[in-house]
C-alpha cells in the first residue's frame, strides 16, 4: 500500500502530483496510517516533518526553501527548513525532482532523482494561436510574452516590470497564482487563479515565457510552458539552471522524463525496487 501524506492535495482544484498519483496507483491512499506493513510506504511531503511511523518512507524534497535561504539570505523559513531536514534525515529514502537540488540534502544520505511529472497531454502546443488571442483580447499582431507567478520575491516579478519597460513593443500576459499574492502589470493582460485548461490556452497565445525566477530550479509553471513548446527567455542569463532549454523545450521535458507516462513508469520501478506492493 502506498500512503500519500500531502500538505495540500490540490489547493486550486488543479490536477496535482497527488491527484495524478492516486489515479495511476488506484490502491494508494491519502493520509498517514496508524501502522505500516512491511510492503507499505509513505510518500511524505517534506514540510510535514518526518513520517512518525516505523516502516518505509520516502521524503519528497520538493520545496525550494533551501534555495530561497541561500539566494535571499533570510532566516524567515528556518522553522520550516527544520521540519524539512527532519523529514530528510529520518525518512528511509529521499527524492528531489532534479539533480540540482540534491546537494541540499545529501548529508542525510543518498538522494534519488524522480520527476514530479507534467501533464503533456494537457500542456501541449495548440495550432489556433490567432483565435486564442482573440478569445482573451490579446493583440494578434504583437510579440507576446507570458509570465506566471506570485508577488513572492523568489518569483522575480520586478524583473517582469523591468522587461516591460525595456521593450514596450512586447505585450505581456501575467498570470497570478491566487488573489492573496496577486499584483498587476499595467498595460498587460492580467489573469488570476486560472484553471489549467485556460493556462494552456494562455501559454499558446504567447511567443515566449519569461523566467524571472531568482532560484536555480524550474517552477512547475515553467515545466508546463515548456511542455507547450514555448521558448524560455531568462531575465538572468548567468543563473545556473538544471538545463538550458532548447528551441523546442517540449523535447527537453521528454528528455528529462518529466512527461507523466514516463514518470509513472519510473515511480513504479522505483517503488518496486524498495519492496513496496500496491
Amino acid at each position, binding site marked *: 500500500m502506498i500512503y500519500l501524506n500531502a500538505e495540500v492535495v490540490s489547493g486550486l482544484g488543479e490536477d496535482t502530483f497527488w491527484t495524478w498519483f492516486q489515479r495511476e496507483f488506484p490502491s494508494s491512499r491519502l493520509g498517514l496510517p496508524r501502522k505500516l506493513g*512491511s510492503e507499505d510506504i509513505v510518500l511524505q511531503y517534506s514540510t510535514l516533518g*518526518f513520517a512518525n511511523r516505523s516502516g518505509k518512507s520516502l521524503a519528497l524534497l520538493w520545496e525550494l526553501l533551501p534555495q530561497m535561504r541561500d539566494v535571499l539570505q533570510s532566516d524567515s523559513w528556518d522553522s520550516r527548513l527544520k521540519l524539512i531536514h527532519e523529514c530528510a534525515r529520518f525518512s*528511509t529514502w529521499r527524492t528531489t525532482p532534479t539533480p540540482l537540488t540534491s546537494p541540499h540534502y545529501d548529508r542525510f544520505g543518498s538522494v534519488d532523482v524522480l520527476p514530479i511529472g507534467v501533464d503533456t497531454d494537457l500542456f501541449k502546443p495548440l495550432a489556433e494561436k490567432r483565435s486564442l488571442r482573440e478569445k482573451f483580447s490579446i493583440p494578434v499582431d504583437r510579440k507576446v510574452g507570458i509570465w506566471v507567478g506570485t508577488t513572492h520575491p523568489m518569483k522575480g516579478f520586478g524583473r517582469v516590470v523591468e522587461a516591460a519597460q525595456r521593450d514596450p513593443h512586447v505585450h505581456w500576459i501575467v498570470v497570478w497564482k491566487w488573489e492573496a499574492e496577486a499584483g498587476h502589470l499595467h498595460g498587460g493582460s492580467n489573469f488570476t487563479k486560472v484553471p489549467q485548461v485556460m493556462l494552456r490556452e494562455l501559454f499558446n497565445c504567447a511567443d515566449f515565457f519569461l523566467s524571472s525566477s531568482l532560484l536555480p530550479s524550474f517552477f512547475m509553471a515553467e515545466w508546463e510552458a515548456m511542455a507547450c513548446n514555448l521558448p524560455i527567455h531568462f531575465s538572468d542569463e548567468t543563473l545556473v539552471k538544471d538545463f538550458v532549454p532548447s528551441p523546442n523545450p517540449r523535447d527537453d521535458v521528454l528528455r528529462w522524463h518529466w512527461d507523466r507516462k514516463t514518470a509513472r513508469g519510473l515511480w513504479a520501478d522505483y517503488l518496486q*525496487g524498495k519492496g513496496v506492493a500496491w
Partner: protein
Amino acid sequence: MRISILSLIYKSPRLADWIHDSVTEFTPMIARREAQFTFVANDPTEECLHHLQSRGYKHIVVRNPHRSDEELFRLGFGAPEYMHRVYRAYNEGMRQAESNIVVLVNSDNYFSPDWLENLEKYLSQRVVVTSRLVEPGHPRHGVFPDAIAAAFGGTVDTFDRKGFLDFAEKTKETGLMVGGAYMPCMIFRSVALDAGLYPEGNLAGRSFDQVRRYGDEAFYDRLRRAGVRHLTALDSVVYHLKEGEKDDGPLSAERRKAPGFPPPVARPAPARRLEVVNRTVDGTATLGVRTWRLYLGEAGRRIRRIPRSPVEIARAILPSWAFNGLRGVWRAMRGKRVGDG
C-alpha cells in the same frame, strides 16, 4: 573529522581490499572528509602490512603480547586465545581514534547505501547503535541472533553484490529495534572509554575453555550499566560474510579447532520493535511502543519506561526471580481453572 570507522585486519589483503572498497563506495562522508576509515593492523603479517602501505590505506599497527591459556585464565579470560588480541586491538583503535564518534566493523562486512548516516541519526550519549546484519549462515556458527538469514555468498569470490544490495533496499525501513547484533556499531568514543571498553577476552567460567560471557556481550553489559542502551537501526543494512580472515585461505589444524566467532547466544526474548510516535518541539525524536520512550537529542537524551499495567509494574519493582515465580504460579492457576472448566 567527526567519525572514525575502524576495522581489524591481520593477514588478508583480499579482505582488506574488499572492505576498503565497500566502505569507500557506500560512505560519501569519507569523500566529504566527515569520516575516515582506518585499519587496525592487529599483529599483521608482513604481507598484509606491506599491502596496506603500498595501497596507501590509513592504518595503525597494534602488537600484542602473546599470552598462554594459563596466563589468560589467571586474568579471568577464556577461550579462544586470539579473542584476547581481537578485543585489545578494538580497544586500542578506539583509544587512538581521532574522532569523537567511532564505528567498529568487521573486515568481512559489506555495506549498503546510507548505512553510516542511518547509524548516526539515532546516536546519542545514551545509545550505542548497531546495523541490521544480514548473514548467510555458517556451518559451525549459524546465524547471529537478530541477524537476517539470507545467503548472498560466504566468501569474497562468491559474494552476490547485486543480490545483496537489492535485498538491502527491499529490507530497510526507518525504525529501531532494541538489542541486536554487536557489530557494526557506532558509539561516542568518550562513552566507550568511560564504560571501560571491551574486556580483553571472553570472560572465563570455571575453566579456560568454559566461556561465561563473550567479550562483546560483556562490553554491552558495561554500557548498559552505564545507562547506554543498545539499539539496532533497521535502515542500516550490512552484510556479514561470516568468513573472516581465519577462514580466508588454508586453515591450520590448530585454528580449525578454535571457534571463529562467538557462536550464537540464546537470548531470553526477541528484540522489540520501536516505533516513532512523537516529535518534540526542539526537533528531537521521541520513539517508542506504548510504554517505551526514547528521547534522542543533542542534550539530555534519555530513555525511560513508564509501567502501565499491573504486570509491568510488577516486572519493574520485583527481582526477576520473584517476578518469574509469581508468573509461573499465575499461569499454573490459570491452567487449572481452564482444566476445571
